[in-house]
């Protein structure tokens, strides 16, 4: 079994050894919430609806527009919405990725893009920012902000604009 740097730091914190090692003490805190989002993304890329739902509370509120569509409330309604989305997305085409994130207490902010091809061929890439509110390890509220008209235009077959492309050309979050 090998010990990586973070394992060593956790051990050092537990023993109080970091008090004498300021360089190690500056290591950024381990993210607690971002790994949950990564698990959700991995599940959705497999089009595994139940794999996504296992990370949300029964009373999840999913506001997946910036105010132009009603919120989706409850796990059953989210399941229906995801199944409908799954039916429209080409399997294997999903390139949902996160460019940056920040977390504090029970909230995770993210900046990323939902990118995929519809089964009818259109290429869709929706840059967005959003926040996830957690209760324990589960997402209890999910809010995403983007321009719904851009999404509608791409789904109707219009090409991706220069403004959208500019937002996509970024390294992924680590």
């Amino acid at each position: 079994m090998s010990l990586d740097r973070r394992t060593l730091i956790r051990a050092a914190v537990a023993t109080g050894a970091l008090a004498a090692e300021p360089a190690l003490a500056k290591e950024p805190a381990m993210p607690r919430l971002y790994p949950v989002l990564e698990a959700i993304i991995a599940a959705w890329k497999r089009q595994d609806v139940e794999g996504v739902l296992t990370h949300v509370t029964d009373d999840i509120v999913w506001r997946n527009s910036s105010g132009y569509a009603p919120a989706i409330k409850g796990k059953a309604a989210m399941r229906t919405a995801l199944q409908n989305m799954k039916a429209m997305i080409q399997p294997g085409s999903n390139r949902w990725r996160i460019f940056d994130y920040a977390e504090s207490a029970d909230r995770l902010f993210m900046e990323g893009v939902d990118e995929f091809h519809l089964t009818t061929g259109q290429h869709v890439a929706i840059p967005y920012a959003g926040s996830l509110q957690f209760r324990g390890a589960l997402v209890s509220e999910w809010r995403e902000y983007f321009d719904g008209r851009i999404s509608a235009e791409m789904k109707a077959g219009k090409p991706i604009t220069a403004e959208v492309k500019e937002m996509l050309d970024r390294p992924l979050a680590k």
Partner: protein
Amino acid sequence: MGRCYAILQQVIQAWQAKDIDRVLAFMDDGIVWHYAAAAMPPVRGKAAARKLLERFQADMHGIQWRIFAYSETGDRLFIEGVDDYRTTDGHRVAAPYAGVLEFRGDRIVGWRDYVDLGVLDQQKAGQALSRQVEGLLDRPVAS
């Protein structure tokens, strides 16, 4: 309170006081400002930012810019909030958004706001705030 959020609060106070020079004082000369990320081209540089602020200011009255939540990491500040104001025609505009601000020292060098301009256009045309917009606004302000 985080370092970056404290700077944003000063920007908000300056904007609500309609003090454009003070707002610009918090921006880097090379700022890239996506005021409607992915929907509109960004403005680049402080001179272009001034023109945009002047255009905004002409039709924004009784500004109630509020931040509901934020988180910062390193030199980036993530926010959720609303620009709530009345147009010259008297229509209420309140578009919920999320944004990311990047700082170089104490100055903002990158700013990306993600907002639905369709929602905003409907409100500017006189439509009442929708239930879903009200749902996004019905939150306490961040302290």
